[in-house]
């Protein structure tokens, strides 16, 4: 039992940090600009594909730097030539733009790289088991992912809360005209923020690509869970997203580890023994529903605390 608990905790933390890595950029964009970016998972996918291609040409480590920069540049172009024009039409227009962009990016990616999964491998330098607990190996690459997530979290927090840049960026969201009068180029600030957010997604793609499957539908499969993370953590709250990622990672991992079903909770009064159309539902195990648990959490938190765990505003 102890073995399963320790290993599940470790797995949960590792998965949670991966979620944070993916959602950090989305949180930045949302909290600083108020744009709910549907194309975020697509930028993540672009990061993975650029990472794959650049790794082939110049190796993993240069790719780790270059691919996010490329994705960031694309993000900035999207902000400059797309979002800025739609901004005056309100949030719905922005949302629709990013929504359409997500489809466009997926099609372009599958045109260039095809629809089959790519052979994107963990770099040789990190391809060894970092440590072994209860005869289960933990690969160095996962520890590397964890480290990168923590570094990003700390760096973002420091920049936003403790530096002048963060001050201006935050002010630009709430008082754009005032910031403009003080001599700052608000448009450029937004462009930079969107670029950084996209670059973070790109970085997540380069890193998560080898660990998961790099394929043209990876954006669609990860998109929904990212929204759960940021809504659960509180829209626009970085520490909230961090905590939410960990909670979701742990809850999902432990749910898989549990074997009990709804019926077994009743002990000897097991309702599934009786003739009932609900027999199937009673016998569903907790492990079976594990991947839906985050979405149930999402619904719950919206009912109980609509602003999320650490959110400051409701929308």
């Amino acid at each position, binding site marked *: 039992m102890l073995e*399963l608990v320790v290993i*599940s905790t470790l*797995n949960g933390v590792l*998965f949670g940090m991966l979620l944070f890595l993916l959602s950090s950029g989305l949180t930045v964009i949302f909290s600083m600009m108020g744009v709910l970016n549907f194309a975020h998972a697509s930028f993540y996918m672009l990061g993975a594909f650029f990472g794959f291609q650049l790794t082939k040409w110049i190796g993993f480590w240069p790719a780790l730097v270059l691919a996010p920069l490329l994705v960031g540049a694309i993000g900035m172009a999207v902000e400059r030539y797309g979002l800025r024009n739609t901004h005056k039409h309100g949030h719905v227009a922005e949302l629709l733009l990013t929504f359409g962009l997500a489809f466009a990016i997926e099609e372009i990616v599958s045109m260039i790289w*095809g629809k089959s999964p790519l052979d994107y491998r963990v770099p040789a330098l990190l391809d060894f088991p970092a440590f072994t607990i209860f005869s289960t190996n933990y690969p160095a690459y996962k520890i590397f992912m964890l480290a990168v997530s923590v570094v990003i979290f700390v760096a973002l927090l420091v920049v936003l809360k403790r530096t002048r840049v963060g001050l201006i960026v935050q002010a630009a969201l709430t008082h754009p005209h005032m910031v403009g009068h003080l001599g700052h180029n608000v448009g450029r600030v937004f462009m930079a923020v969107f670029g950084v957010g996209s670059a973070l997604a790109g970085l997540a793609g380069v890193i998560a690509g080898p660990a998961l*499957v790099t394929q043209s539908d990876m954006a669609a499969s990860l998109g929904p869970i990212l929204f759960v993370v940021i809504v659960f953590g509180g829209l626009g709250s970085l520490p909230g997203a961090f905590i939410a990622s960990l909670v979701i990672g742990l809850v999902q991992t432990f749910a898989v580890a549990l074997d009990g079903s709804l019926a077994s909770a009743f002990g000897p009064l097991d309702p599934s023994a009786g003739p009932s159309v609900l027999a199937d539902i009673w016998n569903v195990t907790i492990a079976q529903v*594990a991947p*839906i648990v985050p979405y149930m959490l999402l619904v719950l938190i919206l009912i109980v605390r609509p602003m999320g765990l650490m959110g400051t505003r409701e929308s």
Partner: protein
Amino acid sequence: MRKLALAIAVIAPMLGHAAWAEDTIKIGYIDPLSGGGASVGEGGLKTFQYLADELNAKGGILGHKVEIVPLDNKTNPQESLVQAQKAIDAGVRYITQGNGSSVAAALSDFIAKNNTRNPGKEVLYFNYAAVDPSLTNEKCSYWHFRWDASSDIKMEALTNYMKDTASIKKVYLINQDYSFGQSVRSDARKMLGAKRPDIQIVGDELHPLLKVTDFSPYIAKIKASGADSVVTGNWGQDFALLLKAAADAGLKVNWYTYYAGGAGGPTAIKQTGLDHQVFQITEGFANSGNQTAMDYEKAFRAKVNLSLWYPRAVNEMRMFKAAAEKANSIDPVKVAATLEDLKFDVLDGGTGFMRKDDHQFFQPIYISSFGKLAANDPFDEENTGWGWHGVSKVDTPQAMVSTSCKMTRP
């Protein structure tokens, strides 16, 4: 009222296409060409297009050119019916589909209804990969023909092999939570229990289809159970991610699978370094040792740049031609009648036949393992340098199962 309905039913299909092309045989290929199943669907499309080109180069079927009409169903039953209707309206009389037993069940039902309502415009459904046993049992249809071995046939062959492997003591089952995964799971329990009662089933897991990104919690459970072998029907990313997580955690077990050879599977196995520890069960494989099949594989790879993952598609198209020629007609009704109990020499050697009772094709089945190439195995997969090596062959008579199908014939 009835007469009017009948008149509409007869006339309506003619409006769209005043003279439907008598010259070409259009085969509607309904499978995912976008979304999660796209990589699989695209491979199938390329295979069928290659087969059509091959037939056309030799004068087609009874002088008719064969054309594959690709239709994207996004692995969705509802979308498949829309596409099927579209195809039928465009003059398609043959439909082929493979990915997803839920899609197959919907299509089979739809086509049966279509054929009752439109006499003279019957459509045949060639199923090349949907393996849910119910399609040739309680849900069987006269218009449905299946070339892939159904899931219980595969499990029969697989358990016959496992029965003789004394080292198997504890088995863990992990499958996708939908009709196919559930049938793999229940067949495995039933057949292992009957053939090797001493084998312990130490775990039985169902997980949601194509939704899991991290399998390490599942691997932790497998490890904790002390299993020495895992049986899984997983395919696509559910297989690749499962295996990656296993290799990351250092889980050393043997894997008995249905679809390890599907797109992305070989790459994942090579990444994990599980040398000849992953087994799959198929109706043919690249290094089968049959010279004709291996020459065919070589030509196929040179042109399509893919491994031949569907030897059954080759059997399907060739047998279609054989049936049409025997009936001396490309009319679906006549082709269907000739297909029944038709014997056919399959690509990888040996004879199979299309059983009249349930329209299931029975053929020799192979079990192979994936790893470093032996001296006489020429083909690797997905440029990994590793390939399939045959471990066991099950001949047609041993690869048969009974059916509960009560076929309603027209």
